[in-house]
């Protein structure tokens, strides 16, 4: 849940930051566009959000196929 929430939060915050900077939010000379791009990395590394939601559901005792090798290792 920590990874899922933090990675989605980082993307949301970076999106809002770019909107506040308006057109400068995509100018390469500003850092905002880099935060926006780099935050996407969190959505892929250490399990996608979809896989993490599957793991959370499984840990909650809800039935369903485990969808990832990460889960099987636990």
């Amino acid at each position: 849940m920590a990874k899922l929430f933090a990675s989605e939060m980082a993307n949301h915050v970076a999106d809002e930051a770019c909107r506040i900077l308006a057109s400068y939010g995509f100018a390469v000379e500003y850092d905002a566009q880099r935060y926006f791009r780099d935050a996407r990395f969190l959505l892929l590394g250490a399990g996608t959000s979809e896989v993490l939601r599957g793991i959370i559901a499984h840990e909650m005792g809800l039935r369903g196929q485990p969808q990832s090798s990460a889960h099987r290792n636990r």
Partner: protein
Amino acid sequence: MDFGFTPEQELFRQSVREFADRHIRPRIKEMEEEKDVPHDVMQRMAEQGFYGLRYAEELGGQGADNVTFAMFNEEMARCHMSVAARAMMQCLMGTEFINLYGTEEQKRKFLIPAIKGERYGTMCMTEPAGGTDLGAMQTVAVRDGDEYVITGQKNWITGAHAVDFFTVAAKTDPEAGFRGVDLFLVEKDRPGVEVGERIDKLIAFASGCFDLYFNDVRVPADHLFGGEEGKGFTLLRSILNDIRVHTAALGLGIAQAAYEESVEYAKQRVAYGRPIIKWQAIQHKLARMRIDIDAARLMIYNAAWRIDQGLPVNIEAATSKWFITEAVLRIVDDATRIFGAYGASMDMNIQRYFRDARWLLYGAGTQTMILNIIGAEIRRQ
């Protein structure tokens, strides 16, 4: 009530799609790397008569309606946003003020050649001090005998390096806020016009945005659009709905492309023993994309149709633009998630849609300004 397009409109959409696939798509990689749209690509669109789509037949145009022009923008953006943006500038913002408010001579010298692709135009609004906030504009135009002298700096000017003339917003009354803004026709070869640095940016790599300087540039007094000072805001407002609807159509094109490629990829990509399209988590993303696209398409083409019918469209143009912007950002977000790490690969189209969709956040008004406009219209009704 009829939600269908005419056979002519459907045929036109098909012809634009085929044109884009044949002449634009093979050039995308080159354009993204060079960060420009080459002149021969711009000329290809002229040969098809695209630049005259909106203009009267006696000017060499095609007299097409706004529904048809929205189709053009959607199909071009479905292929490549940068080219679509440059084309829309030439078809609409860069030339429309001459069409509506130019003298016969200006139409002959600028508009008719622009329709043929012999001359190119662009619009210069944004400045370092502000874009949305017209009243903050610092470029001034001072009357001197039979001329105006224009001084100031513009930035984020699309295609400034490649065009021949500008529609420039400048203040004739610096004290009057946005009511002091007027619009001028300025040829690029006038002494004192200087194209500055290309702005390195995340979105629409090839659209080409530049700084632009006007150093005491003199133009004849009849280059003031509207015939008298203080009319700039009114003139601008007369095409704002068109700009919003057609910018929305660009967003719809990106959304459609991202959706189509997501469906294809989800069918092919196998994870945990089956194509990922068989997982509900993926199906739901595709379903949400489809809902967004269907809703946006109805809103946008309804707004375009209302312009064609001469019906009030302030709210519909604004709601279309706001909705497609949020929708396309959701769609490209989900599309990159479906593609996983490949969604970040520079070899794939998805990263381009992901970046270019953010054009919608600023083009034709920021989202917050659009909400203000919708709110003000609701209050007025």
